[in-house]
């Protein structure tokens, strides 16, 4: 299963930073499926899930954008009260701390994107507990 990769772009705290990157992605013909910004006032990291990760990565690098790949877990949770808690409780029970979390509901499917330092351990833990982790293809075909 191909793990889900996001592109992470460094952004200074200036008005044009997101536009600078989205313009490049548009020029490259890359479609953005999801975007999230982790911001600490002075600077931030914009994370994208795109349809053509490799192409976008090379394109951005060639256009002097500071970019890196970040592997995340995409977990499908039940779209009901307590759905998120189920995942949080599993990870907390094994003392896995989360770096960045975001979630969305699409076509009645609730997806959590988890950035964790101990990716493999978290992956095993969640699969063992019967949770469905999406591959990159699945994510992109949502």
């Amino acid at each position: 299963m191909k793990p889900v990769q996001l592109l992470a772009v460094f952004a200074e705290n200036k008005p044009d930073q997101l536009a600078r990157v989205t313009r490049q992605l548009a020029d490259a013909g890359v479609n953005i499926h999801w975007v999230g910004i982790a911001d600490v006032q002075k600077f931030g990291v914009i994370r994208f899930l795109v349809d053509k990760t490799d192409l976008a990565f090379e394109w951005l690098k060639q256009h002097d954008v500071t970019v890196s790949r970040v592997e995340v877990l995409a977990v499908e949770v039940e779209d009901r009260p307590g759905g998120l808690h189920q995942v949080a409780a599993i990870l907390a029970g094994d003392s896995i701390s989360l770096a960045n979390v975001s979630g969305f509901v699409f076509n009645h499917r609730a997806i959590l994107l988890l950035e964790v330092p101990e990716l493999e351990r978290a992956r095993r833990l969640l699969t063992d507990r019967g949770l469905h982790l999406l591959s990159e293809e699945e994510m992109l075909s949502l």
Partner: protein
Amino acid sequence: MYWQAEIETMPRPELEALQLRRLQEVVRRVATTVPFYRQALAEAGVSPDDIRSLADARRLPFTTNADLRANYPDGLLAIPRQQVTRLHTSSGTTGKPKALFFSRRDVDQAAELIARCLVMTGCTAEDVLQNMMTYGLFTGALVLHYGAEKVGMLVIPAGPGNSERQLMLMQDFRTTVFHTTPSYALYLAEFIRKRGLDPRKDLALRKGLVGAEAHSEETRRKIEEALGIDAYNSYGLSEMNGPGVAFECEHKSGLHLWEDQYLLEIIDPVTGVPLADGERGELVLTSLTREAMPLLRYRTRDLTSVIPAPCPCGRTHRRLARITGRSDDMLVVRGVNLYPQQIERVLMSIPELGSNYLIHLRGLDELTVKVEFAASGFDGRVENLVRLEERVVEKLRAEILVKPKVELSAPGTLPVSEGKAKRVVDERVL
């Protein structure tokens, strides 16, 4: 390998006797030909006949930056105007330019000193030198150029900037040695890396001659590591011919200052009192052999010390320690004295950081250090950047005793200059 073995390894007593003869001669000459010096010597109550030993040099008046400006354009000329063959100006690190004149013999002697320096680093006629300093009024490129031709090197007068073309020249003509500033050397290394080239495999570079900006040992190592070369520190100033005043030998441990041509003193920059070998202070130089515009006890404002021990290379000319700053570069922030080089040293010792930085002073004593992180140091996690920033703040605070603000910038986003890098922007409203 020596260029002028007899002079370079001359026993100290002989060398000092030569210095004294030349000092007596130059004092006598400026006393008769330069009205400024005639007056300054009279005011100091010294006549040329009073110079009986090298220690008597201390009785001579200093020459300062301000004296050069006050005598602009040609008040300090010691030969008739028609015997002057070249004009340079100071590179303008500080304020208005100063005019510096060369006679035909001065040009030739400066080239001889450069030849000594180049051979001292192991350069030979086989080498191809790419000279990336600024040609023109600045002494950096032209003076070194002439010396390299004396050695018989193939000199490519590339001039600064245009990294694309620099790389092309390096590839097409198999450049083995380059001459540039430390900041451009680091910029170029990054440029080459971005092109997907490995300098160790794809280029023929062996050595870098690095000068015109004071830089730290950490910066040298960074340049050497990034390009797979040996980098040699070059020291000079336009007032004393430009480059070639002092240079590192193959041992890379201090810069041999050519004492047959320059009389060297280290003084306390505040009191003017001479300091002993090993003590850090301001470098003061007297040009012993320049014809067109010899200067007595010129206050370089560069801070260094003399390394007293003899060098294993066999040269008897004493070594200067790495220049640690200019006395007028010193910043006072919240009552604490600090030098930009201290900040540079810290930044260059942190591998996750890039090589470009800016020291910004604004408001009421607010110190901000902007620094690029290394492209390889970005893993997409914002928390790691925050941690890196905290580490930089802490390391700087430990070194300079003032807690700065640190702003991380993306690689390649801080301004790069082609000549001397401007690292300090002072916009304080004090």
